[in-house]
Structure formats: C-alpha cells, structure tokens
C-alpha cells in the first residue's frame, strides 16, 4: 500500500502541492487527475524520489520511503510524463541499460528484452537509435523499462501519450492485469475515458489540493453526475469551456 500524508512542495514561494493525502491499495488502479499545473507530476516526482518534498510523508507498506529509498526504488516502476531517453542508444540498448542498473539476471535479461520488444511491436526497430523513434515508440520503450523488473508499485504518468490505438488497448489491458496480480498502480492521466474504464478509485487535484478522493461509482452517486468527465469538469473547471473556445476563436480572427 502506498500512502501519501500531507505531502507539500513549495518552489520559491509558490505552493505547487498543498498538503496532499491519499492511499493507493495493492490490487487496485488509483487514478491521479487534475488540470495542467495542478501538481500531479510534482507529486509523482516526489513519490519516485526525483524531488524532495517540502513537507509531509510518503509511506510504502507502512514505512516512510525515505527510511530506505534503496529498497523502495527496487520495487518501483515508473513511466515519466516526458519521454526523456538517451537518443544515442537503441531501444534494446536502453532496456539493457535499465535492466543492468536494476541488477536483473544477465542470463534472462536479453530474452526478456527481446520478448517485450516483440510484444510492443518494436522488434524491427530494436537496433535503430532512439533519436529516430516516433513519440509512440519512445513511450513503448519507457513502458517496457518500467515493467522490466516486475515491480510491485507502478507509477504511470500519462502513459498513453503518443500510443497508437492497438498499443493503447494493450496498455489498458496490461494496467488492469498488473493490478489484478496484486500490484499497486498509480495512474496519472488527462484521458478521462481511459481512467473511468481502468481505475478503481480516483484522486482529483486542483491548485495543488485534493478536491476528491473516492471510487468512481461513489463519486457518481455523490455528485449525481453520469460520467467522470462531468465530475471532473464540475470540480476543477474554473470557466465554461464553450465560452473559452468562443473567445479563442474570436481572438484568432482579430
């Protein structure tokens, strides 16, 4: 179980994440939603250890992750929001690097990498440099690297970005089966249709604060709204989207 308690991050006087608390349970997919700039990626970076929190605590299996960050990072799989990879390496070389950094057995690593590349339809491009990959191909490499070591906790930040329809369907099914096998999945995305289909519960963030934290069914009942999209719009949208669109069109025509 991943538990986030009163997590806060402040940048030069700006409060990016304001006392955020939620729990992600094993066997479940927890959706982490919010508009741009709401603090989602900052939270994710604090959970993965890329950023230090200004305040609060992150616990995994009841223990603060800062007590033993080594062990925590061993069981963590992470797909970052931006597909930053080493462009001079090939897809296979990048996965080899990730596998060896995680000290995976040398005997099984090449086979595992080959199988993953095959299943993600990257086998033909395995020896091409990542600099030549499309956005979707880079995303597939990131997903492979995140699950290569069979992690217990998987943090996915916009994992569907750039994926084609088939790969997106595969990933959606993969997320469900990873959770079904007892793993904890934290899933941050703007694609609400997918979140609605995949997640057991959602945490919605607005201006750095949690504005909703419950199962999607309970949120529907509580707010008397039929879809997650409408729930989301009601909780976090500051202005009428149609009115904003009309104003944009007017500005463009000026």
């Amino acid at each position: 179980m991943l538990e986030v308690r009163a997590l806060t991050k402040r940048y030069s006087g700006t409060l990016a994440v304001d006392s955020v608390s939620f729990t992600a349970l094993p066997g479940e997919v927890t959706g982490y939603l919010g508009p741009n700039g709401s603090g989602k990626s900052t939270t994710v970076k604090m959970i993965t250890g890329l950023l230090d929190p200004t305040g609060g605590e992150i616990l995994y299996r009841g223990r603060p992750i800062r007590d033993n960050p080594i062990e925590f990072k061993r069981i963590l799989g992470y797909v970052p929001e931006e597909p930053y990879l080493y462009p001079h390496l090939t897809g296979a070389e990048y996965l080899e690097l990730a596998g060896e950094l995680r000290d995976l057995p040398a005997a099984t690593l090449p086979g595992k990498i080959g199988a993953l590349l095959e299943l993600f339809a990257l086998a033909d491009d395995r020896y091409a440099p990542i600099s030549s990959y499309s956005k979707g191909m880079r995303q597939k490499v990131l997903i492979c690297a995140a699950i290569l070591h069979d992690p217990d906790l998987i943090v996915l930040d916009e994992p569907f970005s750039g994926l084609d329809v088939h790969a997106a369907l595969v990933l959606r099914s993969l997320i469900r089966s990873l959770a079904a096998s007892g793993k904890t999945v934290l899933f941050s995305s703007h694609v609400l249709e997918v979140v609605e289909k995949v997640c057991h519960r959602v945490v919605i963030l607005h201006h750095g604060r949690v504005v909703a934290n419950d199962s999607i069914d309970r949120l529907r009942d509580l707010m008397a709204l039929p879809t997650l999209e409408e729930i989301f719009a009601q909780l976090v949208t500051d202005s009428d989207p149609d009115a904003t669109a009309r104003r944009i069109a007017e500005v463009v025509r000026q």
Partner: protein
Amino acid sequence: MTAPPGRERRQFRALVRLFAYRFFDTDILSVRGDLSSLLSQFAALLAALSLVLALATSAKYAGLYQHLSAGQLHAAAWADQEFLISTSMAIVGVFTLFLWDALFPDRRDCTILGAMPVRIPTVFAAKLTALGAALVLAVVAVNSFTGLVCPFLIVPGASGVLDAARDFGAFWLVILLASVFVFLLLLGVQGVALHVLPQAQFMRWSSVIQTAAFFAVLSLYFLTPPLAHPNALLPSNWFFGLFQVLTGSANTALTALALRALAVLASVAVVAAGSYALVYARQMRRTVEQYGVAPARRAHTPLAAIARLFARRAPERAILVFIGRTLARSRQHRLLLAVYAGMGLAYVFSQVAYVLYHFKAANYGALEGRAQTALGIPLILLFFLIVGLRVSFSIPIEVRANWLFRLTDPFSSGAYLNATRTTLLLFAVAPVVAIAAAVYMAVWPRPRALGHSAFLAAFGLLIVELALTGFAKVPFTCSYLPGKANLKIMFGVYWGLLIIVSELVTDVEQAGLRNAAGYAWLMGFTLLVWLVAARRARWARTRIPALSFEEQPEPAVLALGLAQKP
C-alpha cells in the same frame, strides 16, 4: 509569392540569433548556467593567448633590433610572420571543427524551420551570416593583441606612417584571408561529403572526417619546421608569400606563393559555395527523411564483451557500456576528447620537432635528448587522455534523461564509481601502455622497455585515482555549470604543473632505469602514492551522501521572489 522585405529582415535577424546560439548546445547547461560566461571564457582564452604572443614578440624584437644585422633580422621576421599566420589558421581550423555539426542546417533546423513560412534562402543566408560572425569574432579574439602590435614589429625596414598603415592593413587582410581559406576548406570538405555519401553513411563518416581533420590541423601546425625557406606545399607559406608581396617584396618565389594563396582561396570558395548551393537545393528534405544518429547494426558489440570481462556486477557493466557507447556515438564528447588528445599530441609533436630540428648529430646529447623525449611522450599522452575523459564525463548527454540513473543510483553508487575508474583504465591507460610497450620493445633492450612500460602503468593508475578525486557523478548525467572552474587559471596551472612534473618524472626515471635499486625506489614510491590516493578515495566515497545530478544544488534558503519583476 514573395514575403515583404520587412518580414524577411525580421525572420533573418531571428534566425541569425537562433543559429548563433545553436553553435553551443545549451541543453547541457545547469539550470542556473549562463551561456555568456561560457562564451566569454572561450574568447578570453583566445585573447590571453594573443596577449602572451604579443608580449613575447615585443620583448624579442626590442632585443633583436639592437643586436642583429639586417639579414638576420629579416630571417627572424620571416619565421614570425609565418608563425602568426599559421597560428591564426590553426585556431580557426579548430574553431570550425568545433562548429562542425552546425556548419549546415541539421535535422532539427530542417524539421522545425521546414514547417515555418520562411524562405529557404533566408534560412541559408542567416546560417552563413551567423557562421561568418562567429568566424570574425574568433579571428579578432585570437589577434586582438598581436594584430595591434606585431604588424609594426615584424616587417623590418618599414618606416613612416604610410608603411605602418600598409603593414597593418596587410597583416589583417592576410590573417582574414588565411582564416577564410581554412574555414571554406573545411566547409567544402563537409559539403562534398554530404553530397557524395548517402545520408546514413555521412552520419557514420562525418565524425571520422571531423576527428581526422582535427588531428591534421594540429599535426600540420606543430610539425611544420620553423620557416627558413618557403615551402610551396604548406598553406601557411602561401599566405606568408601574400603578406610579403603586400608589404613590398618583389621576390618572384614569394610572388608565386602569393598567387597560389589567391588561387587556392578562390578554388575552395567555389567548392564551398557550390556545395552550399546544392545543399540548399536538395539537402533540407533529405535531412528530415533520415536518422539523426548513425545507426547501430549489431546486437552484440565488442564493448559488451569487454564489459563482461572487466566488470563483475551488472550495474557496473551497464555504466561501462553506457560510457563506451556515449563516447563512440556522441560527436560532442568525442570532439572534446579529441581536443584533449590533440593538446597532448601538440606537446608531443613540438617535442619531436624540437629533437628533430635541434639534435641533428648523433652525439651523446642527441641520444639523451631523444631518450628523454621518448620517455616523456606516453606520460604526456596518458595525462591528456585521462584529463580529456574526465572532462568529457562532466558534459552531459540529454541531461533530462538522467532520471533513470536517479531512480537507481542509491543501490549502485559504488558500482558507478568503480565503472568510471575501470573506463579510464581501459580506454586511456591500457591502450597507451600497450602501444608504448610495443614501440619500446621494438627499439630498446627488453629490460629497459618492460621497466618503462611498468612505470607507465603505475603512473597511469595514480593519475586515474587523482582524476577521480571528488567525482561523485555518473558520467554524462550531471548538468554542466559554465564558469564553475576558472578555465584560464586552471588551464595554465595544470599545463605548467604537467610540464614540470613530466620533466621531473622522466629525469628521475631515466636515472632510475640505469640501475635496479633506483628503479625499485621509483616504482615503490609511485605505487605507494597510488595506494594512499586509492585509500583516500575509498574513504571519501563512504562520505558521499548521494550522487550528484545537478551541478548547482538548490539553495538552502529559498527566496520568495518578491523583488522580481513580474
């Protein structure tokens, strides 16, 4: 439809600015890094060199005018004229090779600008203007002091204001033409390669051509003998001839050299212009269609096999292979390494040239001088190679991709540092020792050859340990902060130390190689110092809280930014 001239001018200005900034890869900079400090350091280095040369020339001629005859003065002046011209040519050559990847519009330029409403001629004109401005800045920086002083000193017999004005104008004109010649020659070489080779092959061979040209420029500069009689094969001599003609010489041999200078300048200008025009016609689309990095063809490389042989743990192997692949495929890092290797070679070449040109007779002094040079060469090369690798480790590649290492570093940080050390031993110490041993075995008696090779290996171990003192990073993953080290001072200090230490070490070693006890003492002392340094490094490593990925850490006290402008 033609764009209005006002819009084109604005686009042109924006593009010149963009290309000028693209000459330096700003992605590598630390979050608070300042590009202007990087540029000013480079300019200051060139200007400092010019100041030293100007002072040395002034001091030399203050003495020469009183003591030498007119004929001797002319001979000295000829050598200095050629030296100043060839120095400018060499520096412009190195500078152009630094900008090698930016000489023609690259894939990023083509992809981004191809979708913009900008005429291709505007793009190319802006590119050429930015390149021209960079070239002029480099030429002015490297002649900032010599160009003000030397024209009035190195032309004996000149008198009066008119002569002074003529010599001043001739100096700057010849320096500029010689620099333009080198620049256009290298531009033409790349342009021809772009058209002759398929794009994938060009990507593969471009860096080889760049590195080869780099060593050619350095070799030509340092191995050219001091000018006694002009040589029609040497480019710097052609422009020396031009300077002579412009300053009033009527010598037919020099006139022929001057004509050759103008002819080759015109030829390279035609080739460079032609290749640029062809690129303009067809290259932009071709570049977009192709990969930006030379493709890897094989699943298993010798590098992976070497890593398996020398690294026990998987993270150690991973870093070793990562370092090897980055050095092999990143042009920026390879060029940086070539610069350091080139500096080492430059010193070596100058030593070889000194021995060749000063010890002609096979007397005892010549043999001793040659033996000392032979001992010193691998030491110098080793030093520069290790320092070059260490410096290249500090320059990141795709710094934002370091999150992978940041997610894994705590449980492998010891392995990372071991892998870095192994890399220096494998890529610097091992090849230099192996090549040196092979050469020594061929020319020296076996005990002497083996003795020196063993000392070289021990010296290599020591330098590696010293080079890694305080290095708590995964190579190529930490952002770079220009201005952190004062290059002007550090470079001078290291260079001076190196010269003193290498002279001292070769003296001691030469004495040590003559008797077993002396040699044992020397080896024992070197190994003891290495052992102490290694122990100290191991102790220091236990005190490192975490590896560093950002050169400038977040401040302990965060400012609220209330005084900042909105």
